[in-house]
């Protein structure tokens, strides 16, 4: 299954979460969405994802930018 990449490094809250939510709509259940985001967006994006039943399955970091792998809830 291919992983879609979503870059929200240029966005601020609440657009960060809106874009992630829209991105997940294009992913099938249990599919993966990779999200590139800045540190400032981490808390709100991750807590919203958890609330909505998705899982962050991997986190990596490069030059201050975080890359989250999000598995869509079933």
């Amino acid at each position: 299954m291919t992983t879609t990449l979503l870059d929200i490094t240029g966005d601020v809250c609440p657009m960060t979460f809106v874009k992630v939510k829209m991105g997940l709509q294009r992913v099938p259940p249990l599919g993966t969405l990779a999200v590139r985001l800045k540190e400032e967006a981490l808390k709100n994006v991750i807590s919203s994802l958890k609330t909505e039943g998705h899982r962050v399955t991997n986190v990596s970091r490069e030059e201050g930018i975080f890359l989250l792998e999000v598995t869509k809830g079933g």
Partner: protein
Amino acid sequence: MSEADFKELKKGGMMRQAEAGHFSVRLHVVGGRLATPQLRAIREAADRFGRREIHLTSRQGVEIPHVPQDALAALKEFLAPSGVGVGVCGPTVRTVTACQGCRVCPSGVIDSPELAKAVDRELYGKPVPHKFKVGISGCVNNCMKAEENDAGIKGWIEPRWEAPACTFCGVCQAVCPTKAIATSEDGRALIVDPTPCIGCGDCITSCPTGSMREKIRGYRVFAGGKFGRRPSLGRRILGVLEKKEEAMAAILTVLDFFREHGKPRERFGDTLQRTGFPALETFVKERTGLP
């Protein structure tokens, strides 16, 4: 009317106005909450005895201004059946302020209005060396400004790190607003420093693996804050308290300290400048056994 009479009225929440012969009547409100029948009674009272005006005070209180002196007793009598009492002024424990708390606010950690009611029941109007204000914030967002009160309470989450699922992804450290989380020297553990930790729980909310968990969801006590002419912020005392009863015991004992060490007309923050905060903390710990 003599000055002594005016003072007596002021103690009972009836404050002389700039306009001679008129009073602003302070009502008893707890935690900023009034039932709608009470509000209707207050409106009716302002229509009958005042000038159809109500003043919302800076500390969640309600006052009816422009009440003629000869109508004060009738106003009090009119409000009594609805459960609206008159307020207090002078060297007493004043209105206990509170936010909406965890029953209403999604950020709420504690039930602030319930705690406000308990504090009010025990302490409202009780004599102290100088005015004494209690404010209760349900979480670290601190809408009720705990540090601006003589005694403040804040809802608080103390985090605990659990090793097994942690991937050391760095999210908790990145989101921590006070940089209270560090990696151990050998890189195998995360350490939460309680001194800079502000109890927000952001590390727990953000942790992708559930490795950051709630250790205590409770109460943090602040003492010695005030505003007015010479503002100073209260400081936190004691550890994170787990139960409402412990928070109550802490406030009651803080007040005992003020009664024993405060001078007449000296705000509690100034008393603590004299005695030092450690003296208060030792006093409260010894009397209550709290951590």
